[in-house]
């Protein structure tokens, strides 16, 4: 995992770090959404959403579940061998993240 790649200038550390930073930013956005809703629209948090749960509970539980899912996805992404032959696999994860 740690060898340098000749074709791209990206080392495995840098690649992991890039994936990590993107996922952190994505999570931070979802988390901020929760804080903004709680602060500015507290009444909205009491409105029923999915499964008969109010928005506050559904969003709160979702934040925990999403963190677990992100952790698993991250582990899968960084395990994909980063050699020139699989450079396509390297592209794929990035698009997956932006779609998430």
């Amino acid at each position, binding site marked *: *995992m740690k060898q340098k790649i000749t074709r791209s200038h990206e080392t495995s*550390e840098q690649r*992991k*770090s890039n*994936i*990590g*930073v993107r*996922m*952190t930013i994505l*999570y*931070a956005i979802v*988390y901020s959404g*929760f*804080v903004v809703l*709680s*602060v*500015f629209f*507290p*009444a909205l*948090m*009491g409105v029923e959403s999915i*499964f*008969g*749960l*109010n*928005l*506050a*509970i559904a969003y*709160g*539980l979702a*934040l*925990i*579940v999403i*963190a*677990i899912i*992100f*952790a*698993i996805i*991250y*582990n899968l992404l*960084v395990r994909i061998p980063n050699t020139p032959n699989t450079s396509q696999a390297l592209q794929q994860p990035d698009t997956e993240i932006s779609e998430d």
Partner: protein
Amino acid sequence: MGGYFVANSSINWGVNGIAFAGSYLSVASFLGICGLIAFFGYDGFLYSIGFLAGWIIALFVIAEPMKRMGTFTFSDALNHRFNHRGIHLAAGISVLVVSLFYLVPQMVGAGVLIEPLLGIPHYWGVIIVGTAVILIVAVGGMTSTTYVQFFNGGLLLVFAAILTGAVLMRGVTTANRVNEEGSTDLQNFQYQEISAELAGEILLVDLFDAQVIERYATVDSNTGMENLVLYHISHLIPATPLAENQYSVSIKGRTIPFSTTAGDSFWYVEQMDGLPYLRIQDWWRLIPGEDGAYRLIETQFRAVRPDGMVIINGAPEDSSIRLRQVGGISSIPAIHGQGTGAVGPLKMLSVMADPETTILQPRSVVFTSDAGDRITVYYNQPVSGSVFMRPGLLFPLEAKDGEPATTTLLNRLNFISLMLALFLGTAALPHILIRYYTVPDPDAARKSTIVAIISIGLFYIFTMYLGVGAINSGALNPETSNMSAPLLARSFGEILFAMISGIAFTTVLATVSGLIMAASGAVAHDLMSNISRHTFADNTKVLVGRIVAVVFGIIGVILGIFFRDMNVSFLVGWAFAVAASANLPALVMMLFWKKTTAKGIIASILVGILSSVTLILLSPDMWARYGLNPAHAPMPINQPGIVTIPLSFAILVVVSLATAKKSPETTKKLEVKQSIEV
């Protein structure tokens, strides 16, 4: 030396992952959050969310670089590029300060637990746990700490799951099943509710030979309306004669025998129509009803007289005369009848959040009576489930009638500040950071963090059920929210109670030993040699590490006694704020900003510590602790993170730019520019 401080970096990643959970899931997560949810509803769960969200940064940003760049402490990683002894000094100080802030709530939790379990005073609980931890750490070091944390993490997960299962089996119910001391007269007791009339200032009330001694009301500062009206009433209750000068009375469902022989002047028996009555003075809450009618509801109270005597509900406090348990649910949607029976996890939360569900929220008010007694009145406030299960009861975010705009703004800033500190603080906690050095390589660091996120995430989902289960059980201690989880367990039987209490102890041991290890490592690796500029032999470092463990443990014990009645999650919120302000900007910028300099890192850490600790010491909550009026505190909000975290980032950038060495490239550009000008 690597054996004492980092367990020879030989811990398996799976074990390390669960040890992360055991170390991180402190009494704040276990006792504190459960108590906050039971007492304040949804707002307690906000801590669960924030505590878990922080692990995202720990995993994605911090885990692997920490392991790659360091060997013993996170200051190794910070100093990776610079080789500047000032970084070790600043980081070492930061570890000590943050560990101390985190240590205090753990010690408070230990005392809270041991007090009711062994019937000994709070400070003894703190001292006993402190001694146990000091022994584990000073003798065993990181390896034994790791396994204490591993077993604790595993036990916490398993028993939180069992307790959640039991809560779901019970469902949401209005049935009275208070399991106080296994006593049936307590279980069948209902608080008295009597009708009353107000004729002008005079209260007419249906109590025997009643006289109003005092009226006390709290006034809403925004609307000027009275929102809680209490009456101190002297009246007679029937006494049962047992023998000559021996009687018993029933106070709040508790049968209390007493004697009126000489020397015991507290009990005053009057004869009425040949029957004995005891004169009692207690506090009642007045609630306006329909058509100008009123109701008086019995409350519980604790009064401390000027001479130090403590009165509980009208009788002198002793081991059998204590406050009753509180909480419970008074109504649920009609389709469920008395109770839902066993429910699924989602159904449970939706019934709890139903507008037709009424939750009896435990509240209290503290004031000084006309006679100079320090009075605390405990009462249940009925709250709709739809209010209880959304943000607002602990952190008031919605603007209330007549509330000044600045108050609303400050409340909101306080909340944002807390959520920011929780998100950014986790990855900067010293006892979490040291666990990265106990595994062999960066891959193991990553994998163990993932195990940690999964297990901690599951645990935090369980906390929601423990919290609503606790309020549902009606078995809460009105004086401290921290006991809610063990009391919930006791409502299912003594066996679960014993197990949960035992696990709560290992929780304290696991977290505190991690904190003391971090402090011990910081002194031995970062402070000692860099202050004296000497290199010390490995066995000297280990010896110093052990001595620091002892000293640090003793300081924790003393502070744990001082802060005894504060909710432990609340205190931990401060530790996160200090960690996030002191360490996180340095860690993140060192990894991602190439212009970061050693001086920038040092300045950022020191300013982060100083500013966050200063703002905490100037906060309204600390003002109240000093015995001053919280409204006059210089810092208007309790949570400093929103000010100090950006400040620490800014200081790092400014100082780094000011102290930057000119890199070859910039020098070349300058030369070119100069030559053109020439």
